[in-house]
């Protein structure tokens, strides 16, 4: 068992009262799983995805990753786990606008203080893998939406994470590009045995899941 959440509670306090964005959610993920998280808008999907490795701090509940409790560790330790073991892909590509494709992909390696030459080597390999070998010196603004998302994917896997957390990675793409990206994620999942947890709206995307979580109003109703 790679990742386990138990009784996860995330409350937002409002003038109008308290919102339980995550209402005692429990789940487990095995190594190599392709987990899809579905549910209506506002059901807590993003909150779940981002809270697991501390981008959102939980109100209560436990999370165990690789046999270690991570819900009660400090920011610095969580940051270190994200740096080494997690890759994120977001709906809005989230590339740094003034850096070239290859520089964007090198960021996770830079944070791990990988030597420059090796950064270039590994980033080029990954960009080749995602089919962007000829776009390495382009700025994000000079790439199409599908290409930008492939750069984001390259960036999320370049440091060989154990798990990829994707929040609607195809949300901004048209259906055919979406399939391309989904196939790609599946390939990464199968070829490299990298666990994937993907939030999605789309029933088609949800079909890629080997394990499916369905959220409604902050509660898991199907898994």
């Amino acid at each position, binding site marked *: 068992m790679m990742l386990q959440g138990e009784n996860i509670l995330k409350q937002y306090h409002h003038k109008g009262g308290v919102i339980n964005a995550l209402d005692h959610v429990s789940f487990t993920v095995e190594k190599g799983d392709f987990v899809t998280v579905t549910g209506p808008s506002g059901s807590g999907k993003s909150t779940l995805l*981002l809270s697991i490795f501390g*981008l*959102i701090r939980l109100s209560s509940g436990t999370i165990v990753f690789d046999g270690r409790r991570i819900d009660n560790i400090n*920011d*610095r330790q969580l*940051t*270190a*786990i*994200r*740096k*080494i073991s*997690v890759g*994120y892909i*977001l*709906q*809005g590509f*989230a590339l*740094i*606008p*003034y*850096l070239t494709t290859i*520089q964007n992909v*090198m*960021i*996770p*390696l*830079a*944070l*791990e203080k990988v030597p*420059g030459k090796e*950064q270039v080597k590994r980033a080029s390999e990954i960009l080749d893998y995602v089919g962007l070998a000829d776009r390495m010196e382009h700025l994000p603004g000079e790439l199409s939406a599908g290409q930008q998302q492939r750069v984001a994917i390259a*960036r999320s896997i370049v440091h060989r994470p154990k798990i990829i957390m994707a929040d609607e990675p195809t949300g901004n793409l048209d259906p055919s590009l979406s399939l391309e990206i989904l196939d790609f994620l599946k390939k990464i999942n199968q070829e490299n045995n990298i666990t994937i947890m993907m939030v999605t709206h789309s029933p088609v995307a949800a079909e890629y899941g080997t394990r499916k979580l369905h959220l409604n109003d902050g509660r898991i109703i199907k898994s």
Partner: protein
Amino acid sequence: MTISKLVFIELWKRKSQLITGLLAITLGIAVIVAIQSVSVVSEQNVARNLDNLGANILVLPQGASIDDYYTSDIDAPTLPMDYVERILNSTIAGVDNMSPKLTRRVKVGDQSVVLTGILPKSEIASKPLWQTSGLTGAQLTTACAPNKTANISHGLEDEKLKRKAIDTLYSDDCLAGSQVANRLKLRVNGRINIMGKEFKVVKILPETGTVDDDRVFANLKDVQKLLKIENQVSAIEIMGCCNAISEGLLSQLRNILPDTRVTTIGQIVSTQIETNHLMKKVTLVMLIIIFFVGGISIGNYIWANVNERKREIGMLRMMGADRSAIYKMFLLKALILGVAGGILGYLSGTLAGVVLGPYLAGIIVKPVFIYLLWSVLFSVAIALAGSLFPTYLAARFDPHTNLQED
């Protein structure tokens, strides 16, 4: 890729923002460097000019300053030449020699030179070296109108002595300072036309490093006629006996010379030193103002930059950049801004001093290299102080709130 490299790339890609961010700090430092370079030289320079004067008492028109005397503008006040007679005919004791002078800035072709009318004999006689070094009052006692031999026995075989050893300066002859000679390409026995009158250059004076280098000396009578200021002089340089000065020579002179300013060079120097002290205080106040204005302006720039890059900060935090990386990002940027602001401020301030010094203060200003160090240190301190708070806030941003698309 490293965080530092990221900082440099971001700076480079947004150069225009950089310039506005730097403006306040650069201007502030430039002003201080300019003022400092001018005032540091002015002190030395007044001393050197007065040293070269060779007299220890200066009679100037009322309201004229020593600067007026040196810049010699066209409307600089004058005093009647009769005053020389008046001193001679008085019973005042202790005036060893006098040298009336009329100086005016004139155009020769498109060049500006200072034309100085002198009376040759008396000029020489009142030009002994009256001191061994420096300009403090104490040393005045070493030479109360010493003669040439006395000077040489003091080991003062100075260019000034050689230069002043001119027995005659005939009408139509002139002496040229070394810089003037250079600029106008004058040669001995060459000609120079000043305001329609031809002068023969009888001698080119050796370089002294003072305003004299920029002067043409001619007979006082000629100069008065040429400038149509007959019977008027700009100043009377007096060699007074030191004992007499301490016994009230100055006030005696004041009594018989109405509408004049009679000062010893010691007074002039101390006035200049007082002015410089005042400038130092003004500079200190400015330093404090610039610290705050510059700091706030840089802080404001960094804060705008932080806000513009919220999403980027969120992404970096998401990818595992810790808070110290965010500190590094913005403080390194501030450091670079500080260094750049210091260097630019130093360069523009020095340039302003060098270019404007001669016009504003009649002074040749040289770059003071140690100010570069101070400028950079000060500027870096301002930049870091101003950026600390915005950076602290940036590092504390909640990563996820900045990840969503806006």
